[in-house]
């Protein structure tokens, strides 16, 4: 028995969410007195792979062939299931990222595994039961899910566990050659477009979000400036993206993206239940709204009752001063 973690890369680099998944998987391996193996698919340099040792992986299986260069979930799922079998792993961990969401369920079906998506805590193993806490009802609640099957697949939410270094484990990097299954490649990736200068919203540690209180798209300059000073991603409420003031990919809430940053700053957003659903697992919430009765203040940790057009520029100045 062992634990396998899938380490997803973007252009050959691992992101924080991957180190987090490895840290989490390592903690599960420790719970079960076993080792952690990572599986990487696509071109990633050996130094990048061996850096995973810092977070507790003792072996990395590296699959590097041209056909598997781009993410095709059907093919990647086959590889991961094959690796799980080869490693005798009965627990597979991955990040609950966009790709992870397409991959986890397929791996689970292949392994006939119980699947928990959106895990936010370490599993609790007690009296022969293995249960994991996950978000449910779009962040309005949590569900404690027991995996009754022998095999288990867990997709970890970003920012839920944190990156934890693990003392002195040796790591070996091995090539892994999966079986060739031509029928896995009916989907073909044509193009990947990434805005490299922006922090990606789902795994951002700080999010600066604005709503209809900002009156129009021309006023987003200060939101972007604040975000860039904080190294934050920008987000918005649904009516803002519906009106095309901002792209749909920034829309946060029950029908948009769910985020769980360390800091969520909401500017000119009223705090409707559907909006709150998407952000309620943020660790610290700051609300800036001119209406003291805005429902958002009820869930905020810090607030400023005031006009965004006055407060935000002041915040930007204060932040510049703070950073010296």
């Amino acid at each position, binding site marked *: 028995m062992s634990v396998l973690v899938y380490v997803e890369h973007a252009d050959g680099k691992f992101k924080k969410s991957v180190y987090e998944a490895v840290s989490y998987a390592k903690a599960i391996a420790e719970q079960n007195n076993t080792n952690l193996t990572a599986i990487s698919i696509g071109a990633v340099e050996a130094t990048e792979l061996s850096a995973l040792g810092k977070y507790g992986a003792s072996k990395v299986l590296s699959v590097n062939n041209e056909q598997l260069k781009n993410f095709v979930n*059907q093919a990647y799922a086959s590889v991961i299931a094959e690796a799980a079998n080869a490693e005798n792993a009965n627990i597979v961990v991955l990040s609950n990222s*966009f790709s992870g969401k397409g991959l986890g369920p397929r791996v689970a079906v292949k392994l006939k595994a119980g*699947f928990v*998506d959106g895990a936010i805590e370490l599993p609790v193993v007690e009296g022969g039961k293995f249960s994991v806490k996950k978000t449910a009802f*779009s962040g309005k609640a949590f569900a404690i899910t027991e995996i009754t*099957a022998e095999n288990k697949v867990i997709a970890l939410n970003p920012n839920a566990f944190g990156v934890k270094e693990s003392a002195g484990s040796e790591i070996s990097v091995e090539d892994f050659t999966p079986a060739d299954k031509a029928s896995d490649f009916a989907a073909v990736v*044509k193009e990947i477009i990434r805005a490299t200068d922006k922090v*990606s919203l789902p795994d951002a540690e700080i999010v600066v979000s604005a709503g209809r209180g900002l009156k129009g798209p021309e006023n987003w300059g200060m939101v972007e400036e604040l975000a860039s000073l904080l190294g934050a991603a920008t987000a918005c409420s649904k009516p803002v993206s519906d009106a095309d003031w901002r792209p749909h990919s920034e829309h946060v809430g029950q029908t948009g993206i769910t985020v769980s940053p360390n800091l969520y700053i909401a500017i000119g957003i009223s705090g409707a239940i559907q909006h709150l659903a998407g952000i309620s697992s943020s660790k610290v919430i*700051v609300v800036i709204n001119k209406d003291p009765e805005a429902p958002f203040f009820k869930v905020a940790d810090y607030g400023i009752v005031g006009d965004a057009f006055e407060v935000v520029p002041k915040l930007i100045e204060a*932040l510049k001063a703070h950073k010296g």
Partner: protein
Amino acid sequence: MKILVCISNVPDTTTKITFTNDNTQFNTAGVQYIVNPYDEIALSKAISLCEGGKGSVTVINVGESSTEPTVRKALAIGADDAVRVNAAPRDAYFTAFQIAEYAKSNDFDMILTGRESIDYNGAQVAAMIGEFLDIPSVSIIKKLDYDGTTATIEREIEGGKEILTVTGKFVASCAEGVAEPKIPNMRGIMSARTKPLQVVEAKEVEQLSTIQSFQTPPPRGTVKLVPTEETEKLIDLLHQEAKVI
């Protein structure tokens, strides 16, 4: 062209979520049910792909008879016929298995689902159907064009998007951007009553997970207000007290 759209019956988005029976059951008292908002997007896309006699749209729901108003709503929006697999959906594995079994004996060119159901939110069903049928699945798509054999799909990735093509049968889970949700008109509502709704029995499948209990997020403390004149203090609080910047 034949399209199957998976419809899930979920609590209205304004629902305050509470639980009963020692937090083991979702409290349905007074809850209004709706077609899962993402499924409306998937359905609207399917309907526009089939417009002008180019094909037909079947909706499928795994649910007990209480979900029929939601299924009828999907028919009112414009689906041609409906199937209900008569069972309470235990989990995504169960649901996807039932839908895949139905799809095996009925030849669909594509299967569309919503990105996730807003109740148990797994974002699992689409990819599981793909695996059960051994066909491609693309999760969380933003755009879909289809020429009769090949689909060109845009899907969201962290910080950007990916464009891919799929030839042959596939499953895709739809997010915002794929289509504008259609609203049922009077004619749609009238005709929905007489459109075919077939009820099939569920097949046995192993159970791999169960929800033991629910929790609601702990209430947050009261908000600490910073006066506008002292805006800069907020930065200090976030730095020294909350330690998030």
